[in-house]
């Protein structure tokens, strides 16, 4: 396999890491707005205030001695997620799908004792998973009961939808499907499948696993080309509205589809990765430049979405 030349990449408008950091994150994201995005608890509170859907909050553990209170907090709760408020890259997220007697069952089927749960919470509090090792708080959330339409496209985990929002416009989207190889996590570099999604209609475009094209899910065998995301307009609306909430010019919104409440915001990311370009087989920079060329930024969310759907619709062969 031959390497690409810089001129080939720039001709296709591929966004590189340095350019992302300098030209987009550095230029359009004001640092003082970062805490709202980096701290999931703050994101959640801000979203609730604006009436946006988020997973329900069971409780928060702030300090070490409150770890004892987990027992009462989790009493009778069969399914829950423990995550660090300031975790990065999906680190430290523990998903419990069931309880059997004293044991807790992870999404992967492995069993944990209550001691393990407490240890995990302590680790979160001491900053093991947060950026720079700062002390953190642990959030306990309802587990997402994800839309059964998508269950064939994910293995042992929740599939989420990442939408890149630039100056309020949805510019690129993908669905991330966890696999056995990714240990139920939806991170592409850990072996999850990334499926490019057409901004215009929520239809799948292309799927990659570990940077290689795939036709079907490696574990469930479902073909990706039949995938069309439900609630697509709502997904676009929810993610684009985050622009007003965060005031960040460039970010990624992670959305999951809940069976009952529809699209909910899982988290926002001020430094979204570049793998989305592979899943879409398209350059991100080209689209970002398209937005930069727009004469005036549209004010309403709906106007922005309509324009983006028109601009970034993909011709399917």
């Amino acid at each position, binding site marked *: 396999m031959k390497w690409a030349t*810089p001129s080939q*990449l720039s001709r296709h408008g591929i966004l590189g890491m*340095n*350019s992302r950091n*300098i030209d987009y994150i550095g230029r359009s994201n004001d640092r003082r707005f970062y805490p709202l995005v980096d701290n999931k608890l703050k994101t959640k509170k801000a979203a609730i205030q604006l009436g946006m859907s988020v997973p329900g909050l069971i409780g928060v553990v702030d300090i070490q001695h409150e770890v004892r209170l987990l027992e009462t907090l989790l009493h009778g709760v069969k399914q829950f997620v423990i995550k660090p408020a300031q975790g990065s890259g999906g680190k430290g997220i523990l998903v419990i799908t069931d309880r059997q007697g004293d044991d807790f069952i992870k999404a992967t089927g492995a069993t944990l004792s209550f*001691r393990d749960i407490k240890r995990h919470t302590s680790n979160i509090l001491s900053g093991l998973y947060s950026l720079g090792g700062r002390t953190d708080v642990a959030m306990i959330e309802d587990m997402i009961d994800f839309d059964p339409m998508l269950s064939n496209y994910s293995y042992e985990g929740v599939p989420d939808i990442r939408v890149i929002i630039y100056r309020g416009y949805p510019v690129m989207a993908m669905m991330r499907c966890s696999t056995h190889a990714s240990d139920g996590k939806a991170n592409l570099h850990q072996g999850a499948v990334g499926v490019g999604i057409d901004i215009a209609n929520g239809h799948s475009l292309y799927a990659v696993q570990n940077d290689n094209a795939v036709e079907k899910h490696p574990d469930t065998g479902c073909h990706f080309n039949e995938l069309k995301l439900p609630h697509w307009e709502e997904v676009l609306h929810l993610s684009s509205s985050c622009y007003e909430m965060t005031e960040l010019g460039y970010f990624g919104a992670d959305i999951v589809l809940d069976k009952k409440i529809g699209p909910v915001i899982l988290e926002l990311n001020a430094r979204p990765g570049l793998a989305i370009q592979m899943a879409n*087989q*398209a350059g991100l920079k080209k689209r970002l430049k398209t937005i930069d060329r727009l004469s005036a930024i549209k004010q309403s969310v709906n106007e922005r979405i309509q324009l983006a759907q028109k601009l970034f619709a993909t011709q399917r062969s």
Partner: protein
Amino acid sequence: MKLSPRLQIILVAGILIVLGLGLTLYKNLELGFPLSPGQQQAVWTIESKISFKPIGGPIEISMVLPKPLAGWTILDNHFASSGFDFLIQESQRERKATWTRESLNRNTMLHYKFEIYQSDSNGLGDAPVPTIISPEITPDRLAAIKSITSTLKQRSVDPAGFTKALLEQLLLDDIGQDAAFLFAGRKENRLTVIMNILSFSGIPHQPIKGIFLEDGRRRQTLNSLIEIHDGNRWHVFNPSSAEQGLPQNFFVWQRGAGSILDVIGGEHSQLEFALVKNTLPIKTVLFLEQHVQDQLLLDFSIYSLPVEQQGVFKGLMLIPVGALVVVLLRVLVGIRTAGTFMPILIALAFIQTTLLTGLFIFLLVVGAGLWIRYYLSYLNLLLVARITAVVIVVILLMATLSVVSYKLGFDQLLSVTFLPTIILAWTIERMSILWEEEGGHEVLIQGSGSLFAATLAYLLMSVELVKHLTFNFPELMISLLGVVLLLGRYSGYRLVELYRFRDLGKLDE
């Protein structure tokens, strides 16, 4: 007019680069500082500290200054004598520095710093032969000396052989009854005993006082050699090893009898030395010799700092070079490292340990640490306690490694102490988390990325030319700053991205 950030950076970086290069060129062209190391010459900076406790009343301290002998040349003298009257007296025989003061009520230190290098090593040359003064000693000691000399005389043919045999005998574990008697219970030192024996045997002799030069050594004290005259010429002996000849690393301060330091009005006086070796190009040495205080830029160079700080800066000046390597690898190549600047610290450690030993020790300690950390993760510890535990384990590992390797005779593994302990512990902690979260694959990528960056930084930092330039032309760092600023604005593709996005580059084919 307001400049865009991009233009500002280019402007500032350009000014910095030009400024640094300009100063360097000025030093090179106008002042004659050589750009390339060329032939090397070891220059020793010796800092002498005189400390004493005043007993009240006027104080007079006099010190005999070293006289260049055996091919040594003194480059630069510097005295620090706050509050004292200071005077240098020169006579036919010696140069003497004298500090005087009316009164003083606290312990004080006086400093004398000088730089020396050895242009040739022709030996000490000739000197007048002193007359032998018979020692005044008690009859029983005289008897002991007689007994020692009579046995030694049988074994040796000439004065040099006799002296060597005597010194060797005195180095034995069992020095014999007579010698043991001479040494016992007396405050006179070995040297006096040896000189008494030589006087008794009718061999002309004199002490040589000086310093054994060891790089980085602090609190070094004066040492004495002894030389004897066999009727034709002088022979030098080292009493503590019985070896003949002037040792290569011995700087002669004073040849012949006489005290070096005299303190009137003080007690517990001490003379100590701090030593640092700089390897400089001969051209620079000659240049310094000629122009010592007449150039502002030189007077403000690192060479004007105290010896200990010079040693520190020798290492510090290399850090920006290592940092540049890390910046290049991360921004232009896209190599992932564990911790941003951990590779530099490891590279600095490699300078002390040498590369292969350093790599071996690093892998050994981190490997063993990961294994122990794996066990610790079962114990359900809090983060801070766990890292502390890892720090302790790492130090224990380092100690064990040192002791075991020393016993087995692998001296080079002793340099394990140069590895930064806390950094190692954090590396182990981060790696083990990485292992749990992302799998061994990622540990391998980041670990080898870090080691690769460290190795590259080490290789660059150990190039003679780089060492020469960073230490002699610190203004190059201003240019380096400019280059780093420019790199900070590089928004092009990284090398690894050309591979990562290889399919995307060929979409239309």
